[in-house]
């Protein structure tokens, strides 16, 4: 019996569409749309890719505020309250964004969430919309 190669090839085509990780229509649509936009106005389409702040919108704003406060106060390290630590995404992104500043459990410079009660021995020294900075003894 001869191997029905053409049949297998066409059936394989079906597998290709099952094999793709996301619905293939969505991928093909996205590739076409973005390529079309890119060729229409390459400078506009690519403008968002460049610059040190490009894509910063994916970083949680609290993480950016913690990093900015740490830099403006020239910290060597910092600590986060339990409430901030309780959200793994915020916790990890804060550590990643503030890097190379390190998280230290014994740091006197501790960040709290708004409306969160400060620990005894902590005094508020600065504030942003999503975070409170306190100096703790």
């Amino acid at each position, binding site marked *: *019996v*001869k*191997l*029905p*190669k053409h049949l*297998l*090839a066409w*059936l*394989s*085509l*079906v*597998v*290709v569409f*099952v*094999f*793709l*990780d*996301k619905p293939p229509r969505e*991928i093909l649509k*996205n*590739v*076409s749309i*973005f*390529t079309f936009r*890119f060729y229409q106005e390459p400078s506009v*389409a*690519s403008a*968002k*890719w*460049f*610059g*040190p*702040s*490009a*894509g*910063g*919108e*994916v*970083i949680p704003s609290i993480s950016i505020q913690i990093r900015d406060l740490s830099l403006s106060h020239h910290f060597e390290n910092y600590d986060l309250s339990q409430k901030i630590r309780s959200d*793994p*995404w915020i916790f*990890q*992104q804060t*550590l*990643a964004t503030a*890097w*190379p500043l*390190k*998280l*230290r459990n014994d740091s006197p410079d501790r960040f709290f969430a708004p409306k969160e009660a400060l620990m005894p021995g902590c005094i508020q020294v600065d504030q942003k919309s999503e975070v409170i900075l306190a100096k703790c003894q």
Partner: protein
Amino acid sequence: VRGAGTLAASLLILNYTITLFTGSLLSRGFIFSILALLLLLASPLFPVLIPIGVFFFREPLNAWDARSIWFFHSRMIYLSDGVNAQTGFNDPSIAWSHPDYPTLVPSLAAQLMKAVGYWNEYLPKLSLLLLLVPAFLWLASLLQKKKETVLLVAMVLGPLANVETGLMDGLLAIYAGFSLIWFHQWWQSRRTLDLANVYLSLGICLGLKNEGTVFVGIALFCMAAWILINHGSRLKVVTRSLWIPALGFVHLLIWHHYKSNLQIESDLHFLNSVGFQHVKERLFEGISLKHISNELLFSKRGIVGLLVFFGVAFFFQKSRQVRRLALMSISVSFLYFCVLFAVYLMTPYDLNWHLQTSATRTILPVLSTLTISLVILLNDDQSKMC
């Protein structure tokens, strides 16, 4: 084209190896030279690479693992100008980030961003595109001959959506597939270049993630067993070509040296008595077994489809040698699947959560190697099989 693909892969690994070996990022001039050479090699592929690049850059890096593991490591390497004591991989506060994971993509991204001059959340994705260059060059060379074009294209294009998110599973799937197809090519042609491609694809697998090491172990075991059983004399060729894996695998040794020097702990600690306790519990539960099987086998419908096609093609394939080579290839898929299954049995995390967040991507190398098993089976160039 195949030579260009091999050269591109060698350059990438060399680049990475030098970074690890010297502990510091290469100069901008050196990076630009490598990039210029890669661009030259890949220039015929621009009509394909540009739309894929545009697709990749439609969003910044936002997947959890991409941001918390791979590109966080990359930023650490970028900020400390290399892999060294200042990088901070041994800092206890980032143990959640799996600092022991391989650093091929992180170091490539760090080098690219050094050349760019600043860090942002879009451009590190260039490293993913760069790693696809050898894959597309290899694909182009294989398509010149293969009738099973659709399957080979699927093997490379299928995992692209995963690659785009900044996770490593898609790239692992692509290069795992290439290692098997190059072994098949080498078995037919006896060309050293094809054997070099086997080692280089395995070398890239090693640099991507820990699962890559598992895959390489399984693939080398099956390939060695195949050579010994079928044509022991070819071992001489393999032995004479042992300088090639030195290029492909040396970065793993250097990375292990760094991990040991910096006392970076491995996150494979669950492979202990507690892990085996989990296995015992889950084996007796019964539900867990069904749950893992369902998630691994049916989360991607392609697996069942490919297995059916494999069965049909196996039945129609007349050459015993081709069937046996395809069986060797599918053994790699099967053994890798078994390891995945065992890992899920041992996981210290909630099984349901672990499966739901990872099964669709960890299974990708099984899909790609199954695809290649089918490609081998559909091969009709039996005259060259020996």
